[in-house]
């Protein structure tokens, strides 16, 4: 449902044009990692690179170590680690993994059509 809604929204904006200007909305992101593992570090660095490249100046990224704040896992429905939550703009998305697959991260962030 949510996906459909987004498609309809994006239609009048820039029909058929890929990367040009997907949205000017502000991105609110939250990345959950589990301790200082290699996977955590690669997830953080991969994500930062993508954000700088595509969302420069219009994103907010919060990195949370689940070991430090285990109580948050329940509320945010975290099961996998690392997990990136795209809280805004809608639709809500969770992107799991070490963010090494850039194309998939972009799809997850609605920066690229599938």
């Amino acid at each position: 449902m949510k996906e459909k809604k987004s498609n309809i929204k994006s239609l009048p904006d820039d029909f058929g044009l890929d990367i040009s200007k997907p949205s000017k909305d502000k991105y609110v992101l939250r990345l959950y990692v589990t301790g200082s593992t290699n996977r955590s570090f690669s997830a953080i660095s991969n994500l930062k690179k993508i954000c700088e490249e595509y969302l420069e100046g219009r994103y907010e990224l919060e990195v949370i170590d689940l070991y430090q704040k285990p109580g948050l896992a329940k509320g945010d429905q975290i099961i996998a680690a690392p997990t990136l939550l795209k809280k805004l703009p809608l639709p809500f998305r969770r992107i799991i993994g070490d963010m090494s697959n850039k194309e998939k991260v972009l799809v997850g962030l609605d920066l690229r059509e599938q």
Partner: protein
Amino acid sequence: MEKKAINTLPKTPTGIEGFDEITFGGLPTGRPTLICGGAGCGKTLFAMEFLVRGATQFDEPGVFMSFEETKEELVSNVASLGFDLEDLIQKKKIALDHVHIERSEIEETGEYDLEGLFIRLEYAIDSIGAKRVVLDTIESLFAGLPNQLILRAELRRLFRWLKNKGVTALITGERGDGTLTRQGLEEYVSDCVIFLDHRVTEQTSTRRLRVVKYRGTVHGTNEYPFLIDEDGFSVLPVTSLGLRHVVSNDRISSGIPALDKMLEGEGYYRGSTILVSGTAGVGKTSMAAHFAEAACKRGERVLYFCFEESPNQLMRNMLSIGIDLGNWQQKGLLQFQATRPTFYGLEMHLAVTHKTVKAFKPDIVIFDPINTFAANDTEIEVKAMLMRIVDFLKANQITAMFTSLTSNRCVADSSDIGLSSLIDTYIMLRNIEFNGERNRGLYVLKSRGMANSNQIREFILTDKGVELREVYIGAKGVLTGSARIAQEASEYAELLIHQKDIERRKHEIVLKRKALEAQIDALQADFESVESEAIELIEMEQDKIERLKRNKAEMAKSRRVEIEDITSNNLKI
């Protein structure tokens, strides 16, 4: 029970009725257990009851991690079983965590693990100091996460982690096609596997539970029927009882004095199983009612299962033979349980019996009649069920009376669903058709452990209850009813004749004696008269002699002659 000593595997009691008995203590402590079965078989409920009972009865807090139902759904679902989940959550006895996975929200972008789930679980466990964990149904993860390889590796790690954590975990799994679970969870959880089943045979459904495997311990391997009702889950471990009942030497009256007399004058043994079998309308229920009434009079509790009549009808009918069961029902000593045998399956009957007996705690249980079960199930199953009931009742020292309807033909053998071997006291009621009428006969076919009478008695229903009469056994065979009465009357008549005869003879003798005595009197009188005549004559003659003497003396005086010689020598009287 001796097994417990050898068995070193620590176990965690579930508190679920019957389950701890068949597993000899419960689930393996500190290890994960898999509980699997088809949809709607009661997995979630079993798991929830495990937690709730743990929290309330054993002071072991628990975490419920749900992958399907939300917290609200769970709370309201189990509220119908009398569990106040909200309250337990507030008291930190139970932690609920609903894991929600929406496939459409998720994008995989490389390697990951399920550490988030572990942290979440650990957090929940530590927050309340949980000893028990339920994961319901973890297989939902397979639908939410695309990478099966990661998932399987992580699950393996999860179960190991749970073991290290030392919590007693219960993992539910949906039954797969030809496998216990859809995703083969049994590969990971291999310490204890429980299988729940919900089967429909002949339009009646039965839930069953089986312990498929339980590493390092003995356990019952049968399929055990179980119930889910307003008190939660109850498994029926009746077959695990075996033949180790405690026996009683106590005797209880059958309620019919003459029948007690046939049983060594004391009646049945307490805790024995009695079968009253007979053809239609022969008085089986009346005997059961007598038994029930006698028990109530002793202040004992009676549970009466009626499968053919409604309690009200039964009470009305029994009033006609002077037994007021309603009175005892009001006093709470008698409870009726009326259901049609076809209402549910055999196991369910067994389960209901089990439950009602446990709740009412009767001294005597009556099943009237049992063979209606055979109508919808095969005999072997009926026998198995009755065996379980008998075992269960015997173990609890409850005296059971079954009534059984037999066809008129093969009276003793084909009847009664091959039950005879289970029965301690077997009473046969049969119709004796003779002389244009049908009468009832009663005999004790067998009665274990007592010298029972071998006699057939006539069984008569009167407005004061059942009476047993001696039947007439003579040259014409066994006579009952009017034939017996006629026979008795003719015997009485004969007796009268004999008595009259004796009287008559006695009378004759009296008369004879009287006649004889009269004769004697007459003779005596004769003799007396003769005698007195003779005496008179003698006296007269003596007078004559005296006179002669005097005359002679006077003559001699006048002639002066001595005459003394004559009188003294010649005349002697």
